[in-house]
């Protein structure tokens, strides 16, 4: 153990440090000024986000159980940025009276899930993966049930924890079979020893579905909408972006580096599942009235699109997925940011409530529109580039029909995104949401999102950067 560990495991260690600091602060802070913990925590987190960008040597720890490569670091940084935005967006909400007694809990829970994700991203062993996954999931259930006095929140919590328990059970069962056929669970060794025996395949499928649950791929997605709707908006935004992103990322790593031997198999599976995911997600999204639920289904279909990058199965696929996740974080958080701001101010969460929003809140409406366009993949915002690269990755493998279906699906999704835009810009309302003045953190968060949405696409350097790192997954 030397300093090297610190630098390699920097993200996780810093996160834990922040966790502890918040805990300490919670104990010693003057109760009257507990609200300031919010600022304290966000600033701390901002600092570690910046620190995350420091250059770092590649390497591995614990006998390759923990691996650091540039792309994994990049992914962590992307998640950090996302979490920073989420935290910024949470400040107003946490300042509310009903949350005043559990401010630090929020941070602790949230940051511990992030720690879990970081470990998951860096994992080089299925045990590490599993631990990270659970660490990322169990506190999330608590977060989903964060709103103690809301039926929906409680329901969301129980649905999340029980479903995810089931899925991790199945995932573990799969792992146990893989273990039985291979003899150990290091990524590198499994990759070398993996056979196409039926037991191993069964194990793979079980593992696959466990992961698919996390990414909410149809038909393993059913928890998603309910949890998203029930959980507090901030948590939903976190769920939809960060936890899904982390799971997706490691999903690709595992598929690419552990199971390349059966790539034909999982490509076919993903082919079917991605079509299902996009289509079902979209079809459900069409009818939604609650904005959170709406975004939940939209995020399901987004996962379907991302699978197109996964199916690419090469550096381009990897790069396009990571890039898209970055874009997606900005876009989705932008959309959620507006929803949060409005929910905080007026408590309204239905699409109908947004009628005539542009008249009263032009700025928020424009941000929402940008974010939705980005999600729909409309140029010149970043989502277009993200989608384009995903489709390119799939097309490179010759999956043109799949690409066609995906793009046709984007039309359905465009339809419902336009419904929201229509509500804001075209529909008239008797009592629109009054003009609201958002505070600095919210503005900062939204500015970050808008900046990301606008710049990430045009600035080719970002994509090229990710692309260059994606070699040697």
């Amino acid at each position, binding site marked *: 153990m030397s300093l090297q560990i610190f630098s390699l495991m920097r993200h996780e260690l810093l996160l834990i440090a922040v966790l502890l600091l918040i805990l300490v602060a919670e104990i010693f802070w003057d109760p009257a000024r507990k609200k300031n913990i919010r600022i304290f925590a966000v600033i701390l987190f901002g600092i570690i986000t910046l620190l995350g960008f420091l250059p770092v040597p590649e390497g591995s720890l614990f006998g390759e159980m923990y691996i650091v490569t540039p792309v994994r670091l990049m992914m962590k940084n992307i998640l950090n940025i996302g979490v920073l935005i989420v935290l910024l967006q949470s400040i107003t909400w946490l300042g509310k009276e009903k949350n005043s007694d559990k401010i630090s809990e929020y941070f602790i829970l949230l940051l511990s899930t992030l720690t879990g994700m970081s470990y998951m991203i860096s994992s080089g062993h299925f045990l590490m993966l599993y631990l990270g996954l659970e660490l990322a999931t169990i506190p999330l259930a608590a977060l989903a049930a964060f709103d103690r006095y809301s039926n*929906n929140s409680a329901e*969301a919590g129980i649905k999340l924890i029980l479903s995810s*328990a*089931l899925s991790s*059970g199945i995932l573990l069962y799969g792992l146990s079979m893989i*273990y039985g056929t291979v003899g150990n669970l290091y990524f590198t060794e499994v990759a070398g020893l993996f056979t196409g025996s039926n037991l191993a395949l069964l194990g793979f499928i079980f593992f696959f579905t466990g992961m698919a649950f996390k990414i909410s791929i149809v038909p393993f997605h059913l928890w998603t909408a309910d949890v998203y709707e029930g959980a507090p908006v901030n948590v939903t935004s976190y769920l939809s972006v960060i936890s899904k992103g982390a799971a997706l990322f490691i999903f690709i790593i595992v598929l690419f580096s552990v199971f390349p031997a059966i790539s034909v198999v999982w490509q076919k599976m993903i082919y079917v599942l991605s079509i299902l995911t996009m289509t079902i997600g979209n079809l459900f999204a069409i009818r939604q009235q609650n904005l959170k639920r709406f975004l939940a289904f939209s995020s399901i279909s987004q996962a379907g699109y991302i699978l197109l990058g996964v199916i690419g199965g090469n550096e381009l696929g990897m790069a396009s997925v990571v890039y898209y996740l970055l874009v997606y974080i900005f876009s989705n958080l932008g959309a959620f940011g507006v929803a949060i701001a409005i929910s905080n101010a007026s408590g309204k969460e239905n699409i109908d409530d947004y009628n005539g929003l542009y008249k009263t809140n032009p700025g928020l409406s424009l941000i929402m529109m940008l974010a939705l366009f980005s999600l729909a993949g409309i140029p010149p915002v970043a989502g277009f580039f993200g989608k384009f690269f995903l489709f390119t990755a799939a097309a490179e493998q010759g999956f043109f029909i799949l690409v066609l279906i995906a793009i046709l699906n984007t039309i359905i999704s465009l339809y419902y995104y336009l419904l929201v835009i229509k509500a804001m810009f075209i529909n008239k309302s008797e009592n629109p949401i009054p003009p609201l003045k958002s505070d600095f953190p919210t503005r900062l968060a939204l500015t970050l999102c808008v900046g990301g949405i606008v710049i990430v696409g045009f600035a080719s350097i970002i994509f090229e950067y990710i692309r260059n790192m994606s070699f040697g997954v």
Partner: protein
Amino acid sequence: MNNGIPLQYFLILASIMFFVGIYGFLTRRNLIGILMSVELILNSVNINFLAFNRYLYPDRLEGLFFSLFIIAVAAAEAAVAIAIIINIYRRFSTVNVEHVNEMRF
């Protein structure tokens, strides 16, 4: 080492437990019952791991440790789950899973 019980027995036991767990998950109406079914699933996994480790790869203890971790995590999971179930009980005055369906479609 070989005390007469073949590996398959363990595996069959584990699969039975697994499916019993799943069956329980799908049919129990009580949230606690569902949670217990999940534990059943996890334990079947543990059996698998241990059996494989003991029979096939006795030179390393990966399976053993894996199952230790699973037990630990399962405990944490159960703790959170039960906490939420308690809250459910407060809010819904029931722990019947069928009544916890305010959000749908």
